[in-house]
């Protein structure tokens, strides 16, 4: 279980390394020129569009619900449910100006960024220690960190509520900032371990001989070379924080402290009335920061993952 196999993957094809190393170039042009257009239509574009449409439909449905007037929402006979000719911004307006939405957005951002930064710092140190310091029991600890993923929030959240209270964190952003890393550290440590292994050992050897300390090696050599890996870990952690629900539901009580997912559900479900328009508008607006983040970094994300796994 220990070594996670990743580095061994391409070990055999060491001769490939020259081709691969350092670049994250797209190799996909490959063989496509051998295929005719009709064939590509059937084997590529058709299945791809089916999958993409299925993946996007619920999202479209959210967007549509967010701008549909309420009257049209439940009247499927008079109005075509797939479209609306009278879009309204009422729901969005209500969301932004008649609720604490901006505050929640800020809270979520704050918690997500803080928890992510903390986790990445901890993960960088841990991953470096496991991969390069190889202290006694490093593999064993590496396995343990991975096992931490075995422990789902749904198991922990009862005892953790007591613990959070003991530490005096209840209903503060720190309740989340300090507990989220337990979800984030295992993955980002794993990701960074893979990435650190791609950095030639010789570089460190030389630096060590020149008398550099481990800390200097980490900050001057390893980290600058691992930027894509760090971005990838950052995005992943940020997404998890943004979506987390159970802890946020349990550890925060005041309205102004809440995070977006919890607050929206709480605010726009009036007992037995679901205000779909505002709920969906909230979901959309709440996803926007992530959409922007991904739009900018998706290529990084893919290439960083590539870097992390290829050795």
């Amino acid at each position, binding site marked *: 279980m220990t070594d996670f196999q990743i580095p061994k993957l391409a070990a055999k094809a060491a001769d490939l390394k020259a081709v691969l190393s350092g670049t994250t170039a797209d190799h996909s042009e490959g063989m496509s020129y051998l295929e005719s257009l009709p064939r590509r239509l059937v084997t590529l574009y058709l299945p791809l569009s089916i999958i993409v449409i299925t993946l996007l439909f619920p999202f479209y449905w959210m967007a549509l619900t967010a701008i549909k007037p*309420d*009257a049209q*929402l*439940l*009247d499927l006979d008079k109005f075509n449910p797939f479209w609306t000719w009278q879009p309204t911004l*009422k729901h969005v307006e*209500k969301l932004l100006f*008649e609720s604490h939405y901006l505050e929640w957005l800020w809270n979520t951002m704050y918690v997500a960024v803080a928890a992510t930064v903390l986790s990445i710092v901890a993960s960088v140190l841990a991953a470096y220690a496991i991969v390069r310091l190889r202290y006694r029991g490093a593999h064993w600890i590496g396995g343990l960190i991975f096992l931490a993923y075995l422990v789902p929030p749904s198991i922990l959240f009862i005892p953790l*509520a*007591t613990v959070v*209270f003991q530490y005096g964190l*209840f*209903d503060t952003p720190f309740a989340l900032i300090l507990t989220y890393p337990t979800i984030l550290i295992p993955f980002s440590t794993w990701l960074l371990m893979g990435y650190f292994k791609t950095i030639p050992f010789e570089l460190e050897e030389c630096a060590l001989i020149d008398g550099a300390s481990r800390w200097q090696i980490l900050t001057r050599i390893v980290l600058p070379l691992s930027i894509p890996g760090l971005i990838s870990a950052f995005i992943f952690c940020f997404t998890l924080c943004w979506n987390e629900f159970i802890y946020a*539901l*349990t550890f925060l*009580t*005041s*309205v102004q402290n809440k995070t977006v997912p919890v607050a929206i*559900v*709480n605010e726009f*479900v*009036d*007992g*037995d*009335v*679901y*205000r*779909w*328009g505002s709920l969906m508008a909230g979901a959309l607006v709440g996803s926007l920061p992530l959409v922007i983040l991904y739009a900018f970094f998706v290529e990084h994300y893919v290439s960083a993952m590539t870097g992390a796994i290829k050795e």
Partner: protein
Amino acid sequence: MTDFTRRTLMQGGTAMAAAGALTGPALFDFAKAWAQSAPWKAEKGAKLTVMRWKRFVPGEDAAFNEMVKAFEAATGTKMNVFSESFEDVQPKASVAANTGSGLDLAWGLHTLPQLFPTKVLMMNDVADYLGKKYGGWTDAAAATCKQGNNWLGIPVATIGGYMTYRKSAMEKAGFKEFPKDFPGFLEYSKALKKNNTPSGMALGHASGDANAWLHWILWGHNAWTVDKNDKVTINSPETVKALEYCKQLADTFIPGTASWNDSSNNKAYLAGELYCTNNGISIYVAAKDDPAKKDLAADTYHALWPVGPIGKPTELQLCVPILAFKFTKYPNAAKAFIAFMLEKQNFEKWLSGARGYLTHTLNAYDSAPVWTADPKNEVFSHASQRALPASGIGHPGEKAATAIADFLVVDMFANFCTGREDAKGAIAVTERQLKRIYR
């Protein structure tokens, strides 16, 4: 589904003002005077964090917040009020009880104070004070909050649930008035189905609606989860009869009720797909507020639950008790606030704001103006008197609360009605669970 904009909020506000209640400066004057003479003096610099369930009717929480403000002004207590959905109130209160912090007051559902009787502030003095002043408490409400002679909380109100139906559909089905007994109700529901104007009640985990009507059927057949001494008695021929009746009834429902939660019937009814269901007054209020649903509102009526073979009302109504935690630093402020809420000057206005959604538990409020403001409200005024506590004839307490919270009765009926289990199997599963809870 209506959309509660500011406009409807304002309407709610004017309706309240029209009811002739105290508002604005008058309210503050009253609050000041009250604070002077009340038996509980809020501690200096007191701060109360209050959790309440999320309002169903906007006017209700407007009235509530006004009360909170008046109380703040009169006593100098800082109030921090926030609301949680029905489902989240109990977990949150439980966590607070468990950790000993976060909340001072919790306004929850059913027998909430009984879930952690050792963690709450005794309310005997408040209950006595209010009971004496306002004609005493109704039986079910008192039973919900009392452990022995101690009051663990104050039953602020009952959220009444009654039959909500479309009169035109009923008449078309050949009924002049809403059925008053079980066989009649079954015939009526069958006739509705035949006309393609079906009825439907939640068979899913809907804490309010599903618990209400399934307990009503169970108890109506004189079947009980436990007897007076908390001995498990679910395994009885009466339960079998209740199951069979329920199945016949459920077969006449609109499809999908097994997945319903508390909001599903509102949605279906307001969309004109459902013609009879059990609910609080919120469906009717929503229809009234929506100009596009005028006809629907005019056609909507309420009726008492039909009475079962047992021959007396067996209604499970949703009591909403408020409790103060023992660990609060400001017990007097907490008590003062609770008593303040239930004073006539506040409470009648509040009832009006709730527009029938809340029913008083103090007998003197039978004459509250809300019950005559709209004749269709009147039915809901009986909710507190006709109710049985959530424990049926057993002791209301932690055990009964667990049984309700675990949806034992709901699951038993749902298991049988959806054909997953036969009567014997459904009862056996429930009996086993009950025996563990009541061990």
